[in-house]
């Protein structure tokens, strides 16, 4: 999967940057003001590209993976749920790579197919969401998910009391309800408001791109790319493609080489949930 040499990449990046500089093009800039609305009459089709060449498990910043931390803090994700989880997978040869794995937002989602009450469902935008108020806790979806991306509220989840004040919506699942399933919701409400999801915002290396397959654009907060071109030119792949789940999250193969990581530099800091005071009666558990 490493069809792209570092030199070739740098050349292209260099050309891109050089072109911008030399030819007086408008550089990509980010404006905190309200983002342009969705193209009229057309639905967004959210997707994500994670550039593994830039992911080093946050070894360079010496902290637990920041994508996970940002998601936990933004969503009040209960311990021990890592809705985006950074797996450390072995590489061919010697060494490991880090793979930040959110819910893959499958287009043929096994979880949606098996849910007996339709508590987990696909939206027209392509996001797979969970209605915690409908879930009966049978956990068929957890059996069906091949990516280990669904989490159950076995007990009263450790969440901060602030979580209790959030308005309920399947698009941001707080507070957690005991006896129901939760997972990454792809932050479509953030995207509609023109902001990147928490994980993309949190990544110090800007490895996570959030995009729209309908308008064919994606951004990681510092650059905007044409999504289809970005995927093809960087040989993006999907996880467990053989299973036919058709995920919307794609990965560009790598092991953090663009931020100076060697494959043999193993280990990352364990995730922490920084809640000081918890909801009464909360206890954590091991996944």
């Amino acid at each position, binding site marked *: 999967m490493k069809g792209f040499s570092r030199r070739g990449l740098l050349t292209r990046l260099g050309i891109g940057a050089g*072109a911008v500089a030399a030819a007086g093009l408008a550089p990509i800039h980010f404006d905190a003001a309200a983002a342009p609305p969705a193209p009229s009459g057309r639905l967004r089709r959210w997707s994500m590209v994670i550039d593994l060449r830039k992911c080093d498990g946050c070894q360079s910043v010496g902290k637990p993976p920041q994508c996970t931390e940002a998601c936990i803090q933004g969503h009040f994700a209960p311990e021990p749920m890592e809705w985006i989880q950074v797996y450390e997978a072995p590489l061919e040869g010697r060494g490991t790579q880090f793979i930040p794995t959110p819910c893959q937002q499958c*287009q043929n989602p096994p979880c949606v197919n098996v849910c007996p009450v339709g508590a987990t469902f696909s939206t027209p935008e392509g996001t797979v*969401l969970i*209605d915690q108020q409908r879930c009966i806790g049978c956990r068929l979806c957890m059996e069906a998910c091949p990516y280990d991306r669904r989490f159950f509220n076995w007990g009263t989840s450790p969440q901060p009391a602030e979580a209790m004040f959030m308005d309920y919506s399947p698009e941001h699942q707080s507070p957690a309800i005991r006896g129901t399933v939760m997972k990454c919701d792809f932050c479509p409400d953030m995207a509609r408001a023109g902001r990147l999801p928490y994980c993309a915002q949190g990544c110090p290396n800007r490895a996570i791109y959030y995009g729209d397959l309908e308008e064919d654009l994606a951004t990681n907060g510092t650059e905007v790319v*044409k999504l289809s071109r970005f995927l093809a030119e960087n040989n993006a792949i999907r996880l467990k493609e053989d299973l036919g789940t058709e995920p919307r999250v794609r990965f560009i193969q790598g092991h953090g080489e663009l931020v100076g990581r060697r494959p043999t530099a193993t280990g990352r800091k364990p995730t922490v949930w920084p809640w000081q005071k918890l909801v009464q009666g909360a206890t954590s558990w091991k996944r």
Partner: protein
Amino acid sequence: MSNRTFAGAVLLALLLLVALPLAALAAGSEPTSLTIAVPPSASLGQVALARVTLTDATGQPIPKATILLTAPLSFLQGSGDVVIADATTDAKGVAIAEFDIRTEGALAIKAVFAGDERYAASSASATVSIAGDGQLYAQAAGVQLPGLNTSPGAIFSPAGSGQANVGVLPGLAALWPALSGWPIALALMTIWSFYAMVAGLLFRIGAAANEAEA
């Protein structure tokens, strides 16, 4: 070697030592000119061709030059010129770049040559008017089988209202599964009709008792 010759050689060496780096710095200073030809309009997502010609100051074509096409696009909070295609000029200095744009409006497509050791950068732009409003990315979740698919009760309102899952026809939600899942309904009805038959026979056993009594 005479003194004059030696001095000349040293001067030449010094000149070269100064001039060559200056010549290198002056590299990429040969002006080039870029022309771009695009169709005036295209529909949304339609693949269009941009014909770009790169020539030097004398009008000679420049082969094997990389041309980038950009368009001013915005996504989430980022906006600027996004690279949408690239191509390489052939022997005649012509590059044909394929591009498609999925944003409506009149966009100024820029062709950019970044320059190299010899030539200077240059750019050119032309406007393309993109029109259309159909949904381009068609996606159906799950497996679609004719006559066998999900109930309307599972449609979620995407307008950002943040409402929980609302069934389109909540009252019908209970009936709909039986209608769209007709193979299962058929199998169940077959079995239960046999049960009904047996229940009828039981009833008749009871009735036959009364006849016997009478």
